[in-house]
Structures are given as structure tokens and as C-alpha cells.
């Protein structure tokens, strides 16, 4: 029998610690359902108090709605409390527009690549 991935698994979150910077690579669509997985993974890594900065790689994120924006801002608050910087990488046009409209891009920086983001920190 062939086992399939759960049909509703629309998001994949991979996290990695690079020095005191947490890199989260988000693949798929971020909405009120899938945001739970994102929050869970992010919080798991943010428990480590050494984490100061966050690089959010969105080059494979095809959609973010207002629930997703809320979750991103929630993580930003944690980073801000620690005096760190948050950088979002690889925004496709509509993702960029919603992050702009919501004011996220007033507080979160953007970079063209993960490498450039890490170089800035």
C-alpha cells in the first residue's frame, strides 16, 4: 500500500539555527489552518533564548493571508523584545503586497536571498 501525505498538509516548516539567528524556511500556504504548524515550530526554536534574529525565507511560500500576517507579527514581537532583527526573504508580489498593506514591512526588513540576509546580521 502506498501511504500518502495528509491531504491538508499545505505547509512545510523547516528551521535551522545559524549562530544566534533562526532561519525558518516556509513552504506552501499560510492561512488560519496551516499557521498552527508555523507557530508551533517557530516557538519550539524561540524557546532557546540565544536566538536573537529571525530570517524568514518565503521564496516557496505561495500565499499568506491575514491569519498568516498575524502569526508573522507575533514572532516579530518576540524578536523585538530580544533586541533582534527580522528579515523576510524572497517575497512574491502578492505576498509582498499583503505584508506592505498590513504594515509588516515597516518593521521587518527584506532581502533578496538568505545569504544576503545572514550577511547583514
Amino acid at each position: 500500500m502506498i501511504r500518502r501525505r495528509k491531504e491538508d498538509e499545505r505547509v512545510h516548516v523547516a528551521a535551522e539555527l545559524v549562530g544566534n539567528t533562526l532561519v525558518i524556511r516556509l513552504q506552501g500556504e499560510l492561512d488560519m489552518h496551516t499557521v498552527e504548524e508555523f507557530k508551533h515550530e517557530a516557538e519550539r526554536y524561540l524557546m532557546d533564548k540565544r536566538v536573537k534574529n529571525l530570517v524568514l525565507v518565503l521564496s516557496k511560500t505561495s500565499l499568506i493571508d491575514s491569519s498568516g500576517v498575524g502569526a508573522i507579527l507575533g514572532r516579530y514581537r518576540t524578536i523585538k523584545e530580544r533586541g533582534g532583527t527580522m528579515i523576510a526573504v524572497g517575497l512574491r508580489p502578492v505576498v509582498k503586497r499583503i505584508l506592505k498593506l498590513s504594515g509588516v514591512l515597516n518593521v521587518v526588513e527584506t532581502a533578496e536571498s538568505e545569504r544576503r540576509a545572514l550577511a547583514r546580521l
Partner: protein
Amino acid sequence: MQAVPQDKSRAGRIPENEVQLLFTSKPENVGFARTAVALVASQRDLTVDQLDEIKVAVSEAVSNAVIHGYRDTSGMIQVDVKLYEDELEVVVTDKGTGIEDIEWAMQPTNTTDKSRMGLGLSVIKEFMDDLTITSRPGAGTRVYMAKKLAPASRP
């Protein structure tokens, strides 16, 4: 005159395609709804950005029905999609709590849930060409939205 919802719904005009979805107010179904609407829309030659905009708008309206319409309860959400020559119409209907003050709800950052941002309806306004909400407290909410499309190119 009548108190029937007035939006730009095209009475008399026949859509090229019409799809109705009816589903339980579960968070998992938000993705299902926007994907289904995008599938109908993609029968036309749209840009990736246009499809993304439609998906986000549907996501907002359906999420609102789940989160605010049915809150801690559960109910059915209906999505009516009509594809016209020059327009895509999407109507999201719930039989939930309803909205007390629609004008207020439409203003950016206004929300009845302090853990949220009051962003969804502004996003729909930004990404679609038309948004009309009708609602009655205790009875439910109907969100009509439409996006202009370039007429299908004929060979």
C-alpha cells in the same frame, strides 16, 4: 423599493461557468475553498498575481465565516462562483452571528477579536474590484466580491 441585497450581481446575464461549494466551517476547508475558486478562475488566462489575489480574498472571506460567523460553534459555509466573460464573482455566505456594524467592520484595523488585526476585509477591498457585504445579526453574513477579467481571447 426593496431591502434585498444590492450588489452588482448580474441578474439576467448567463455566466460561462458556475460552481457552488457547500462545506463545514472547519479551518481545513479554507484552503479547499480558495483552491476550488482559483480552479474555476484559471479556466481563463489569468496572471499568477491575479490568481493569488483571488485566492487571498477567498481565504479572508471564508476564514471570517469560520472565525467570526460560527465562532465556537460549527455550521455550513456556501461559496457561489460565477465566471462571466469580463468578471469573476464570488459570494461567501454563512448563517452565523452576523455583523452589527458593517461600515465599522470594513475599516482597516477594526476587529471584534483583539488577537486579530482587522486586516481581512481591507485585503479583499485591495485585491478585488468590488466588495459588498450584507448581514443581519443573528442570521448570518453574505460577502459579495468581484474581480474584473480581461475578456477571453478568441482565436
